[in-house]
Structures are given as structure tokens and as C-alpha cells.
């Protein structure tokens, strides 16, 4: 039988992006023996790719900003399906979390009077994103990493958790393997924090890395926790579309924040054609007004390119479908045009958007200071995730916490750009704090060796299957991604989604035949085979939730139900594993807003 080593901790954090690092720093600072387990090397997690900035109402650039406006913007962007308590805490606490990063060594871009500079972004009424050029995520992860390594946290790099371990109702640890040698380990902990990010690898066009296989979602679900809002998958409007090998790589919203405009093949700024009613009063009437907004004119309203991501993505999709797209199936994103407005625009663009300049120059052979980019929607983020309690981030399973993208609630039906990085640190800190509290109030539970053995057996199954008649895990993953992209993508229809569900049943059977070759040491084929189980689970969760929500709201657009329904405004969709192992779905009524918050929303309409 397989052996495993056991490690004892108070708090175990799974994932080392912004949320995981911040959670671990907090738990450790409260005196808990804390471990981080992460799939990649430290500092490589997906946070590193965040570009535009972190939203925090510091009012450094526009003194009309406040937590109340940020709260109202977040709720409006999320189409009021948000966990309002999380939206409130997020808006209130984000500024302190930004300042804390500065105290730990982060170097944000500055205003002329020496304060942290803030930039415009979609759906944010005022310039609100603290940033470092277009590499804010790198700054965040490096700051947390460098601070964290001196905080006494034990870090286990390149290890994958395959299951959470339970003692009765409660989570008491996790089992996983190290990628380097393929040996199993058990982390015995009083509380566990999931900070595993998202599910983007369930789709073929994605800005997400190989890590984004819905691990935390699947671990929590299999441990009995509720998942919520899984139908809401954000398709970022601007990913690269050409050449094919870079399709999906993100083009930051910061391009539009700095004055970049979207045009179709006829050169028309099509975003002016379709402005949702609830954003009419806050959107520019003319191109000239939109430009002035991006340059800091407080009397101007934002250009329609800076409407929320769900809307911009759909408009781009519409242009392409109508035959008005660019040569490679996208639309044009033009920042080069600002040469008409400012002298030395090439230098200005390189300074403001250095990674974008670099990325297009090297990967597409295109100079963004002279030529428009071709862009189209790419799978970017999942609003849905583990259902958590707003203040503590504890899931419906005792001892299990979740923070960052893997948690649901803050963003509702659609996330505003910039609210993710702030989410990571606001709720990472909270998860760390309350997981530490839980660890102090509870003794260590008992690890059930049978459960650990079963997890190892399942993980090693791809090696035990006969190669004859076996399937390549890469092939299954590839086909799964295409079925999800085609049928549960940016525009959805009941019939197509039913087809996807059928397809998923077929992939489940194929996954049972997935094989791994050679040995366990750093074997990506084996890792891919293990990941399939999680990808299949989250794909099913997204699809059945999307079928159940018979309306178009936020990131979910249904061609067969193209409008919002009042009925559907009243519930979130929650999933839980049934006794028989099947996915049980229920509608959970949204909690009524307290009067005080209701009033804030009214005042900021």
C-alpha cells in the first residue's frame, strides 16, 4: 500500500496567489502554525497576470469617491445578486489593504503630489484602481511573497491537493502529492483555507493558466460544501485573437482606461450603439466627451468602451457574428489613435502599458503605438464558487474557508475589473483571521486513513489502467474545452447546453479510461489525468446552473431568454452533492438589503 508523510499545522492554506498568501500571513501573524500548499513555484500563481489594478476608494485622484460609491458600483455591476455584506466589507476595507501593501514594500505609480495614483476602469464611477503600469498583479504577489517568507509560514511548492479529509462534518486536513517525486502527503490541520482561483481551463479560449482547473471548487463540493452562482463565468471582452497560438491571452482593460477605443471593420465605434438604460446617465454622449473622461476631466462621463465587461464582450460578439469583425474574428482595439490628441504618444503608451506593448510586439509582431490590435472575448474569471459567510469566509462545511476567486458572493452576476485584486487581500485577510480563530477554538480532528488510502488509489488509477484501449488525458481535456466553449460560452441556449451535458457524460466515461505513462516523477500527463475530474465537475456545475437561470443577467446571456426577469432577480443558484452522489440544485432566495445599504444604492443610481 502507498505510504504518506503527515504534517501537522493549525491552518492549511491551499493556493499561493494573492488570497492564499494574504490569508497565510494573517493566520501566521495571529500565532497559528501555518502552511501553504501550491501547485506551482511560489510567485507564479495566476495573480501575477492581473494587469489593470486594484480597486479601492482612496479618493486620491477624485475626492468625490468613497466606499459608498464603490459599494454601489460593485452591486450595480453584479446586477444585485451579490452577497451585499461582502460588497460592503470589500468597499470599506480595500483602501487599508492597499496601504498595507505599500507598507510591505509595494511601489505603486504616483500622483503628482506623491500619493498612490488611481486609474479609470469599467463600471467604476471614479478613477479607483491603484496600479503599477499594467503589471499590478506581479507587484501584489511579489510583495506578499517577500513579506510572507519572513512571516514563518511553511511553504510546500509544486504540490497538488487531491482531496480534503474530514472527521464527521468537519474538514481536518487534506491529502496531496508532490509533483517532483509523486509521493503522497497528508496535511493535518485544524482549519483549511481554499485559495485556488478559478476554472478557466474548462474552456478552450481562456486567459487562464494550466492551474485553473477548478480544484478548490471541486474539493469543496466533494467535501459537502455548497457552490453558488456557477452560471456566471466572465468572458473578458479583450483577449488576443491572432496568431492562433496566443488566442485568449489577456489584453488589459487598462488600454481602454487610457483612451483606447473599439472599432469594427468599418471603423465605427460600435459601443455607442448599445448603452444599457441603467448606465445611460453615466456614459459619454460623444466621442470627444469620452476622451476627456479618460484624461481626467471630472465633468465628462465615461466612454462606452468602459461599460461593464459582460456588456462589452457581448457587443464584440455581436459585431463579429454580424460580419463586421476584424480579419481574424475579433474587433479592433485602437490606442494608437491618441497620437491625434497628445504629442509623443508612442512614449506615453509604452510608459502606461509596457506589458501590452511588449506582448503584442513579441507575440504578434505588432506595434500598438502605430497599429490597432485585434481582440475578442476570452474566458477570464468565475464569479461563482464556494458559498461563504460574508464576514468570516467560512463555507457551509465547518473548518473549511475560501477566499478570492474560488469563493462566491462579492461579484454577483458580473465582476468589475479591479475588484479582483482587492477581493484577494480583503477576504484573504478575513479568511486568515477567522480560520485562525477557528483553529484556536477547536482541537485537531482525526484523520481517517481509509479516506486517505481511497484518495491515493483514485489518484494513481491512471497508472493502473491498461494502455490498450486507454485514452490520452490531453485529448479528453481538449475535447471538453471545445464542448464547453461552443455550447456554454458567451451566448447560451437551452438546447446547446443540454448537448454539453450529454457530452460531459461521455467525457466522464472517457476520463475513467485516461492513462498515464512511465513513472510518477514530474509527469504532466498524470497530472492532467487527475485534473480532469475537477474540470468535469465544474463544467457540469456551470452548465446545469446556466440552464436553470432562464434569463440574461450579468455574465449569463441566454439567446432564448434575452432579457432580465424579475423572478430570477430573487435567487442565487446553489449546488450541493446529494446522498446518491448526483449534483443537487436549489434556488436560494437572496437576503434583503438593510435600509442603510439600500439607500446608498439609491443615492448612487
Amino acid at each position: 500500500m502507498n505510504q504518506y508523510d503527515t504534517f501537522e499545522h493549525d491552518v492549511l492554506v491551499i493556493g499561493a496567489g494573492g488570497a492564499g498568501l494574504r490569508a497565510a500571513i494573517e493566520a501566521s501573524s495571529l500565532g497559528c502554525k501555518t502552511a501553504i500548499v501550491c501547485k506551482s513555484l511560489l510567485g507564479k500563481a495566476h495573480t501575477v497576470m492581473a494587469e489593470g489594478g486594484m480597486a479601492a476608494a482612496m479618493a486620491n485622484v477624485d475626492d468625490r469617491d468613497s466606499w459608498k460609491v464603490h459599494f454601489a458600483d460593485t452591486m450595480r455591476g453584479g446586477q444585485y445578486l451579490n452577497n451585499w455584506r461582502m460588497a460592503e466589507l470589500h468597499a470599506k476595507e480595500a483602501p487599508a489593504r492597499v496601504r498595507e501593501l505599500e507598507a510591505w514594500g509595494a511601489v505603486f505609480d504616483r500622483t503628482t503630489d506623491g500619493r498612490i495614483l488611481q486609474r479609470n476602469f469599467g463600471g467604476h464611477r471614479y478613477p479607483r484602481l491603484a496600479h503599477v503600469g499594467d503589471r499590478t498583479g506581479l507587484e501584489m504577489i511579489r510583495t506578499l511573497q517577500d513579506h510572507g517568507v519572513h512571516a514563518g509560514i511553511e511553504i510546500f511548492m509544486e504540490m497538488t491537493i487531491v482531496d480534503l479529509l474530514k472527521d464527521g462534518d468537519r474538514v481536518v486536513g487534506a491529502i496531496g502529492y508532490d509533483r517532483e517525486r509523486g509521493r503522497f502527503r497528508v496535511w493535518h490541520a485544524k482549519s483549511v483555507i481554499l485559495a485556488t482561483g478559478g476554472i478557466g481551463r474548462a474552456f478552450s479560449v481562456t486567459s487562464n493558466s494550466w492551474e485553473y482547473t477548478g480544484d478548490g471548487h471541486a474539493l469543496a463540493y466533494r467535501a459537502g460544501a455548497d457552490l453558488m452562482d456557477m452560471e456566471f463565468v466572465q468572458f473578458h471582452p479583450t483577449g488576443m485573437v491572432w496568431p492562433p497560438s496566443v488566442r485568449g491571452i489577456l489584453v488589459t482593460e487598462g488600454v481602454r482606461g487610457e483612451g483606447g477605443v473599439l472599432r469594427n471593420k468599418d471603423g465605427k465605434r460600435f459601443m455607442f450603439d448599445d448603452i444599457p438604460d441603467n448606465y445611460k446617465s453615466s456614459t459619454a454622449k460623444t466621442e470627444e466627451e469620452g476622451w476627456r473622461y479618460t484624461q481626467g476631466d471630472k465633468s465628462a462621463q465615461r466612454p462606452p468602451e468602459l461599460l461593464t465587461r459582460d456588456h462589452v464582450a457581448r457587443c464584440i460578439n455581436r459585431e463579429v457574428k454580424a460580419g463586421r469583425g476584424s480579419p481574424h474574428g475579433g474587433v479592433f482595439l485602437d490606442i494608437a489613435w491618441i497620437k491625434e490628441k497628445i504629442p509623443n504618444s508612442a512614449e506615453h503608451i509604452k510608459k502606461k502599458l509596457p506589458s501590452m506593448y511588449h506582448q503584442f510586439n513579441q507575440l504578434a509582431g505588432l506595434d500598438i503605438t502605430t497599429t490597432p490590435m485585434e481582440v475578442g472575448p476570452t474566458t477570464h474569471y468565475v464569479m461563482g464558487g464556494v458559498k461563504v459567510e460574508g464576514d468570516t469566509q467560512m463555507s457551509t462545511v465547518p473548518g473549511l474557508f475560501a477566499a478570492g476567486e474560488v469563493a462566491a458572493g462579492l461579484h454577483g452576476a458580473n465582476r468589475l475589473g479591479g475588484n479582483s485584486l482587492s477581493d484577494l487581500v480583503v477576504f484573504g485577510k478575513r479568511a486568515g483571521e477567522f480560520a485562525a480563530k477557528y483553529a484556536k477554538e477547536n482541537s485537531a480532528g482525526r484523520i481517517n486513513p481509509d479516506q486517505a488510502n481511497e484518495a491515493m488509489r483514485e489518484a494513481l488509477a491512471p497508472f493502473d489502467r491498461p494502455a490498450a484501449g486507454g485514452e490520452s488525458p490531453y485529448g479528453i481535456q481538449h475535447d471538453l474545452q471545445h464542448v464547453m466553449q461552443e455550447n456554454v460560452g458567451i451566448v447560451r441556449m437551452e438546447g446547446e447546453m443540454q448537448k454539453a451535458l450529454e457530452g460531459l457524460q461521455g467525457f466522464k466515461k472517457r476520463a475513467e479510461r485516461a492513462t498515464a505513462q512511465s513513472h510518477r516523477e514530474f509527469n504532466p500527463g498524470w497530472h492532467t489525468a487527475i485534473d480532469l475530474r475537477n474540470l468535469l465537475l465544474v463544467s457540469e456545475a456551470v452548465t446545469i446552473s446556466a440552464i436553470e437561470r432562464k434569463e440574461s443577467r450579468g455574465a449569463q446571456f441566454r439567446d432564448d431568454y434575452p432579457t432580465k426577469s424579475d423572478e430570477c432577480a430573487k435567487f442565487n443558484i446553489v449546488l450541493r452533492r446529494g446522498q446518491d452522489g448526483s449534483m443537487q440544485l436549489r434556488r436560494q432566495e437572496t437576503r434583503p438589503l438593510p435600509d442603510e445599504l439600500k439607500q446608498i444604492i439609491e443615492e448612487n443610481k
Partner: protein
Amino acid sequence: MAQTTFRITRGDSAASSFKDYTTEITEGMVVLDAVHQIQAESAPDLACRWNCKAGKCGSCSAEINGKPRLMCMTRMDQLPAGETVTIEPMRAFPLIRDLVTDVSWNYEVKKRIKPFRPRKPDNPDGSWNMQQKDIDRVQEFRKCIECFLCQDVCHVLRDHHKHDEFVGPRFLVYAAALEMHPLDTEDRLKDLKDEHGIGYCNITKCCTKVCPEHITITDNAIIPLKERVVDEFYDPLTRLFRIFKPKT
């Protein structure tokens, strides 16, 4: 485009050798795409690291045709057409498997550098004021994606294996970012001289040449640090001055 042959290191620290794989190259492909294609087609257990595939995370470092580069940012059409492409792991670090090396030494080195220690906040809300021009240089250093290609190419590490005495260009840049941070109050000069081996660098600028983030490692980070160390410890006037300077 055409079929291209890749000669890739396979094996582990006990034994490794080249193995050839041929795959179809299409427009715009980068070397990492080819490696993924080879995994899917013929070598499912071919080990390589990668994450962002956009030059932002620094995971997929390797030696392509002998040059340290990121696989995700090396376009196939920049390599000589029709010729075999060689992909090897970084040589300055122990091999784990195929293209994956043990870079854990870098993480240990970083812990030995004294952390950021800011001066007291300028404002009651705990914030500071800094001018953009005073942080431009530090921001250049903080672009580092920790791909460790500079460590790989540095002959002090690669050829002379001074891993115990020299922290390498990455961590000189890291130290420089801290030393030049307008808020930092820590002094790392003695460590740089005695513990981190700054004297080993003889400014051949190989690190600067391979940096995918185009950080001017040698000119902007290492040379100014060397000057500070010299001023502090070797300048006769300063030494004289220090004898008479009251201890603070």
C-alpha cells in the same frame, strides 16, 4: 508552415540524453506551443514548467539553441527555418526531470536578504508620499518575473558553481530594489560585501542580455551597489571620516 524537429533533453539527474520529436509548426507558434503539442502527440510525460504563457510569470525558462530564454516568448519564426531546435533545461541548477530543474536554492537565497523596513509613515492614515521620479528605478527592478535566466547565464554560478558564496544577479537586483526604495531604512551593504559576494560579479553583462523584462541589471543595479559598497568600506576618506564620526 512545416514539420520541425525538436531535440529535447529527457531524463533526470542520474541520466539524461537528447531525444528527437517532430511536430507541425503553424503561424505564430512559440516554442512552448511546440512542447505542448509534443506532449499531446507523442510524449505525454515530457516534463516542463509553465503558467501564464504570456511572459509574465517566468516559469518556462529553458535553453533554446543554447540560449537562456522563456519558451513562451520565443517565436518559432525567429529561429532559423528548417533547422532542428534544441531545448535543454537551465544548466545552473540541478536537473529534476526533462526541462524541469530544482530552483529551490533561489528561494533560500532570498530569505537571507534583509527584508524591507520602511520609515515611519508620512501621513496619519499610514501612507507615504513619494515622487514618481524617485521610484522609476525601483519599479524597473520590480518588473523582475523571477525566471532565473540571469542566474542561469551568470558564469559565477553556471561555470564556477559559487552558489554558496554568491547570490547571483537576480538577488543583486532584489537587493538594489530594496536599497534604492525611497522608504527603506535597512542597511544591506555589509551583507552584500561579506555574505552575498557582490565582488564576484565582474560585470560581463550576460545577465542583462538575457533578461526577458529588459532590466538593465548590470548598469542600473549591480554597478551602483558595487559603488555603494566601495564608498562604504574601501574609500579612504570615508574610512577616515568614520573614525571621527560619533557613533549613532
